[in-house]
């Protein structure tokens, strides 16, 4: 039997072993299959920053035409599910206290009279500050409606020229258009990170890692056999989310699919390197999972999906450049909405290649270090 540096037979045996370990391990199966299904459900039905289906209360003390007009428009507004009409300030307050409505509108006695006199009428809006985010958005919607009523009264140039905002690439600011492409990256990041970080730690718990190290297999074979399954699963999950974005959420995909796929593969390779490093230093699977989250969560937060990288302190901006997700997010969001040109994609692709090379090299150093 000749022992060569690299053997396809040995590699194949280890690859099959890895795939079986992932598929037969309930913990790994959960890492692979549960998050994508869960996230798909969450984002198709629940998570959105838009405000919909809310109840508001109205205390109308004015019997004039303009308050009637305002109420008509509120009743027909699509984001409002129900308008509660009340007849006292106290009742108004109570509805907000109970959380029955998110906002309340109090229209004073002189509302129509003031508008008829050519002034702008004033109505009071009370908002539930406990739900500050949705509350603020509601106020914005309400003032738009109120302004329309006012503008309808005074159609000429008395009002300041309104600034018209146009949102490029996502004209209607559909929240999913923004979040789903980003999710592709997060999902691929966590699955690849967890699968690889569990792999060596699992073997160490079983004692099979020593068994592997006394066999003629080389470090390169160990790394490749542990990378391939994670790479395959990460890529499939990424593609799954991309197709969900295109076909289910109907997000316009305007970029190059081939370049996106290449970036996805490079991105996952760089994550696999990080996962293997975590795994090489962890003694147990528990440590490996903790390690994966300790690296993964800050990486997501600093990648620019939550806050723009440009808003961070300079040092953190440099650090963010070392996070693979930062670069992949630029590419995936650009490919979906912006029809990002190849040149711009390549500008973010080469840092990914550098990071992948660095993490995989370090991982092999770490694994060799176990032999010391």
């Amino acid at each position, binding site marked *: *039997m*000749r*022992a*060569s*540096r690299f*053997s396809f*037979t*040995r590699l*194949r*045996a*280890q690859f*099959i*072993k890895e795939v*079986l*370990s992932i598929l*037969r*391990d309930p913990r790994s199966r959960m890492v692979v299959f549960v998050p994508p299904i869960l996230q798909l459900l969450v984002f198709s039905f629940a998570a959105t920053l838009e405000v919909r289906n809310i109840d508001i209360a109205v205390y109308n003390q004015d019997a004039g035409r303009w308050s009637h007009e305002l109420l008509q428009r509120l009743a027909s507004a699509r984001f409002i599910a129900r308008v509660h009409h009340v007849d006292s300030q106290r009742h108004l307050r109570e509805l907000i206290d109970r959380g029955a409505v998110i906002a309340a509108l109090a229209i004073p006695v002189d509302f129509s009279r003031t508008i008829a006199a050519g002034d702008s009428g004033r109505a009071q809006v009370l908002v539930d500050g406990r739900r500050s985010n949705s509350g603020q958005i509601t106020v914005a919607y309400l003032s738009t409606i109120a302004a329309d009523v006012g503008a309808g009264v005074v159609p000429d140039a008395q009002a300041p020229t309104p600034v018209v905002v146009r949102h490029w690439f996502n004209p209607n600011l559909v929240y999913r258009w923004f979040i789903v492409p980003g999710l592709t990256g997060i999902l691929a990041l966590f699955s690849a990170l967890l699968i690889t970080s569990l792999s060596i730690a699992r073997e160490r718990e*079983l*004692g*099979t890692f*020593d*068994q*592997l*190290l*006394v*066999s*003629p*297999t*080389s470090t390169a074979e160990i790394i490749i056999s542990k990378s391939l399954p994670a790479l395959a699963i990460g890529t499939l999950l990424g593609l799954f989310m991309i197709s969900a974005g295109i076909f289910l959420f109907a997000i316009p995909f305007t970029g190059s699919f081939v370049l996106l796929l290449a970036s996805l593969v490079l991105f996952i390779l760089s994550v696999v390197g990080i996962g293997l490093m975590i795994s090489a230093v962890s003694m147990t699977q528990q440590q490996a999972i903790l390690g994966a989250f300790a690296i993964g969560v800050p990486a997501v937060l600093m990648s620019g999906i939550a806050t723009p990288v440009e808003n961070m302190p300079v040092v953190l901006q440099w650090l963010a450049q070392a996070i693979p997700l930062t670069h992949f997010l630029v590419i995936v969001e650009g490919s979906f909405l912006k029809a990002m040109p190849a040149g711009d994609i390549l500008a973010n692709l080469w840092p990914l290649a550098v990071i992948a090379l660095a993490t995989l090299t370090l991982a092999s150093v770490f694994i060799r270090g176990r*032999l*010391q």
Partner: protein
Amino acid sequence: MQPASAVAATGAGEGAAVVIEGLDKHFGSLRALRSLSARVHYGRLTGLVGPDGAGKTTLMRILTGLLVPDAGRVALAGYDVVRDNDAIHVVSGYMPQRFGLYEDLSVMENMRLYAQLRGLDAERNAGLFAELLDFTRLAPFTTRLAGRLSGGMKQKLGLACALMARPRVLLLDEPGVGVDPVSRQDLWRMVQALTDEGMAVVWSTAYLDEAERCQSVLLLNQGQLLFDGPPGELTAQLGERSFRLENAGARRRALLTRALELPSVSDGVIQGAGVRLVLRKGADSAQLRELAGQAQVRLAAVPARFEDAFIDLLGGGPGGSSALAERFAPVELDSDIAVSCHQLTRRFGDFTATDNVSFEVHRGEIFGLLGPNGAGKSTTFKMLCGLLRPTSGEAQVVGHDLRRASGAAKARLGYMAQKFSLYGLLSVRQNLEFSAGVYGLEGDTRRQRIAEMIDTFDLGGWLSATPDSLPLGHKQRLALACALMHRPPVLFLDEPTSGVDPITRREFWTHINGLARKGVTIMVTTHFMDEAEYCDRVAMLSRARLIALDTPDALKRITAEAGHAEPTMEDAFIHLVESSGREPEVAA
């Protein structure tokens, strides 16, 4: 203490520490205990003995109130274990099989924690702490993390914690596993002192030399009580059926195989240069005398051991021929030296784990590596099989330097570890296929070898099961099959039978003896002194240095010359380690 429950009031339990009556316990379809009745007395060390799966741990857990029996009842110190569960925790101390202490806390912190869990005030019980530390000789290590203690020290700390509440009944679940003879000696001394004070101590074990030292023994097999009484009584039942073929030398393995094939022989093991044999009940020694005559060795009647009686009671040991070895092609090597190391040294920071160790192992030799916990035994072993790089010196396997040609050296060695190192998530067949693949076997050779291993080790009925669901014996066979898939000329065994019962151990050594006869070189580390008897030569390590290297019989002779009459391998071990311990002081 006033017995509270009706059990004691019946008068049946008067004077007994533990009264077990008609105990039954099922786990699914498995009957772990079958109508078991027994007594344990105060002031006595009672051994709970039996092969793997006999129900020892189940019984222990029922005694401590951790499991509820399906039928029957148990009274411990007069309290019913089910009804007076809270009282049980006060009157009993329990040391579980796996180190039940917090590895990230220091020795002292662990003791404080256990004191507080027992409702004792650590500050006010400073006297108790000092006493326990003195008793366990752990006083110099109070600030050391429990996870960094050696196996023997962990057991002592576990014992100290179990003794915290001054229990009347102490339950120890396999305290001797993974503990070297020197530390085990310490444990015995402590338990002896406790029983002298009137405490009842239950010591469960699969090691029969331990059982022999107990004052009373409960022998379990498949959930049934086979024997209850002093071990000497069982040994006496065997009568004059133990023999030894003296000074068989190099032929002893062949002799053992032949002897075990005789219908009149029920059990046999290698003991140094001799072969120890036990006759079946009612058989006479004619066949043995004939065998001895053919081989021209002396047949001597020897006093029976507890182990002889134990195996006999269980129906005798396994046969002597190894289907594995029969199929194994004889090993041919270019040189007679299979494994060698020269001035092998390994340092971890300031600490030298292995210091200038040199030896040569011949082809077909069974070579044992022995030493107390922390003596550098496993460090040396790991360097020899390529798991650890030496700081200086060199190690060779079949002529390949492990540093320069590690791939070539690794392709020629097989390795089997204590935990069996099988992939628990893969099926038995997938495990076999993996080990064939990782050693580069392809195509027909691969299919043939796997089929051969399945056939040899009788694994056919288990192919789609996971290794963890296998009975211990089959699990061990699978591990051996995986380690031997590539037919290595050298086999490394790292405490291969730790925690394994005597019957399974015999089967294992039958294979190993057969392999050695085919020219396979066996390197083995062990804490188990009976296993050292199987070795051709034994290297003793103590404090990182090689202190002795000779045949087991020669090591026993050295001990005999120092004044021990009829020393066992265990006596030899303790003598060698203790006499080497004095040297550094002389040198200083």
